[in-house]
């Protein structure tokens, strides 16, 4: 892929992560949209039943891609988990200013914000919500699918409450995520393109990441192959 912008580039999203993202688009997104249809029972019997079928197919794709990602990209999962649970003063400062986004979007002026790692504090909260919520959605969803006449009524009712609450929450989160992705266009291009971003942009948005976690690429022209985690178990 050729880039019109000049400058050094960073591989921000590996091929495995980008493929997982496609799994979420093909699995989670239809499941979320049909989930709202099922919740509000919008449309005829046949339409709602079709929504249920799509919901289940989406759930299969979502579950399988999540499992595969944990297996083939265990290093990325570890990096993600470590990152979203690491909080310090800078995150508090970032949260207090809203990352400068309200000022930028509403007033059109840029203010200084505390430096961030690969994910800013807002994204970390998002990450915590989707990792826990996604797991709960998968677990409760399959319980609701296969355990209904077997498991106690109260247990099924509880599973449904959890599924509904996190489903609605993450479903709405998804729309926010799509909006912010489009707003940060270079992020969008990276995720749907070759995963790279200009070093200058990375240094602007993710200064701690740029300073601490990057190294020169040894094979500058090759994406890493699927299935070989780049983590070293010491």
């Amino acid at each position, binding site marked *: 892929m050729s880039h019109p912008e000049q400058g050094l580039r960073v591989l921000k999203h590996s091929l495995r992560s980008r493929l997982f993202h496609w799994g979420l688009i093909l699995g989670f997104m239809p499941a979320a949209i049909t989930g709202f249809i099922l919740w509000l029972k919008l449309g005829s019997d046949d339409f709602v039943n079709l929504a249920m079928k799509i919901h289940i197919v989406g759930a299969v794709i979502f579950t399988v891609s999540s499992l595969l990602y944990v297996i083939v990209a*265990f290093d990325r999962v570890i990096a993600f988990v470590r990152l979203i649970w690491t909080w310090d003063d800078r995150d508090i400062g970032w949260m207090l200013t809203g990352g400068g986004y309200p000022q930028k979007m509403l007033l059109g002026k840029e203010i200084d914000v505390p430096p961030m790692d690969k994910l800013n504090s807002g994204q970390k909260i998002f990450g915590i919500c989707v990792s826990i919520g996604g797991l709960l959605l998968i677990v409760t969803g399959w*319980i609701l699918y296969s355990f209904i006449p077997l*498991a106690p009524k109260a247990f099924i009712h509880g599973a449904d409450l959890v599924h509904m609450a996190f489903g609605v929450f993450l479903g709405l989160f998804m729309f926010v995520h799509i909006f912010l992705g489009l707003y940060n266009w270079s992020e969008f291009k990276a995720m749907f393109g070759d995963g790279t971003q200009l070093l200058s942009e990375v240094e602007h948005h993710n200064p701690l990441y740029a300073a601490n976690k990057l190294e020169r690429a040894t094979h*500058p022209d090759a994406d890493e192959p699927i299935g070989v985690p780049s*983590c070293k178990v010491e």
Partner: protein
Amino acid sequence: MAHYDYVEKAVNVSRREFLGMVGVAGAILWTGAYAATDLVQDRNKYIKMRAQGIYKDDVKAKVRQSHHNPGLKDMYQKFAGQPLSPLAEELFHTRYIDRTRLG
């Protein structure tokens, strides 16, 4: 092919951390599966408990066979005569309807 100059440094997962993660995940899965099996297996427990309550009532009853129920014997003597008597047929028996023929 993608062209890039920088990549993220490899993430080092210590053996300890790896085993810890696997252990925690395994423990959660194991207790979850155990609890679920337990819940599923106990789903009819309340029926069995009620049945035991009924059998307890049987065991502690003074008479345990219908033909020894003193009040019932009294009733047949004073009122219905005997089972399947004309009065018993009139009051205690019925007939059924083929509902597929009802409009």
